[in-house]
């Protein structure tokens, strides 16, 4: 599970679920996502992300998710 944070939002990608179809890459209005050399999705331009959630909505394999609040690590609470 990879996590990309920005402010109180974060994007989670589960590479094991990703088939590399690029549906999220081509649907992202901000050009945040790319496919890496292994054919898995990465959020290379997370700074541009507006956390609209289209990638999560469209992913056929539930590999990507957008979260509005950062989940605090138990040790930090």
């Amino acid at each position: 599970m990879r996590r990309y944070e920005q402010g109180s939002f974060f994007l989670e990608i589960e590479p094991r679920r990703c088939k590399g179809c690029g549906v999220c890459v081509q649907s992202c209005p901000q050009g945040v996502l790319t496919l890496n050399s292994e054919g898995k999705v990465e959020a290379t331009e997370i700074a541009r992300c507006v956390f609209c959630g289209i990638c999560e909505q469209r992913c056929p394999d539930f590999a990507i998710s957008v979260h509005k609040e950062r989940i605090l690590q138990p040790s930090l609470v």
Partner: protein
Amino acid sequence: MPNTKELAHHEEIQKRFTGAHALCAGCGTPVCVRTILNAIEEPVVVINATGCLEVATTRYPTTAWNVPWIHVAFENAAAVASGIEAAYRALRRRGKITKEIRVVAFGGDGGTYDIGLQALSGALERGHRFLYVCYDNEAYMNTGNQRSGATPFAAQTTTAPTGEKSFGKPQRRKDLTEIVAAHHVPYVAQASISDWYDLAVKARKAVSVDGPAFLNVLSTCPRGWGHPTDQSIKIARLGVETCYWPLYEIIDGQWHLNYMPEERLPIVEWLRPQRRFAHLFEPGNEALIAQIQQQVDEDWEKLLRRCEGRA
């Protein structure tokens, strides 16, 4: 009524169709199904015709469906939907069910354009309140790419092969959206997996009408069409931008154009990335491309006239 954004955060609705399926990378079908199911607020019952969607989402011993789901046979998704809707209506009338539910049938182009057309036509004519979604990948992809009534002119399939005596499918695609519209149903629309908001809005409109509704959704198939698996959305987008697959809806007989490309792309843009059209780019086949362009132009002009510029 919650808006599309609010529905997107509804966990139960989001998990109506889950990731436990074996549909290919780049398949347009799960994108189509998710977008539609995620846009419907009420509880849904799903009917599935035989096809990739049915086979790959219900692999032994798993299922990708978190909703009541039924598969009967190849030819009768619309007939099964009729039965479900009629029974629901009867139970509702007697007060045994109080909830408002939506009946949604999914069929591929084979199960809709060809073998299932009779059942679909009957259900539309009887006026059951259900939504029929045809995910149209333009051939029988589940059995290995045989031609269907939806396969476009000159496309190569295993039963419309290319060679000395044949240039692929010699016939034109039948226009199912128009056939359905001819049943005078309250809502008919054509959509594409590339335009998700358009598709989601159409799904919402479709389930809100009191009567049959039909969505014809262009759905990519990297295996059958022969394009890279990570280009599906772009390819589907090209179908829309070249006006091969215009986005429009017919509400109570009124035609509305949903998307007018700023600049129409030539049809070769749609043909070139797909291997099923590769033979058209061999020397000597220029006339075929010109013929396809002409067909698309004619259809587009006809559509514009019907919509009278309404967008």
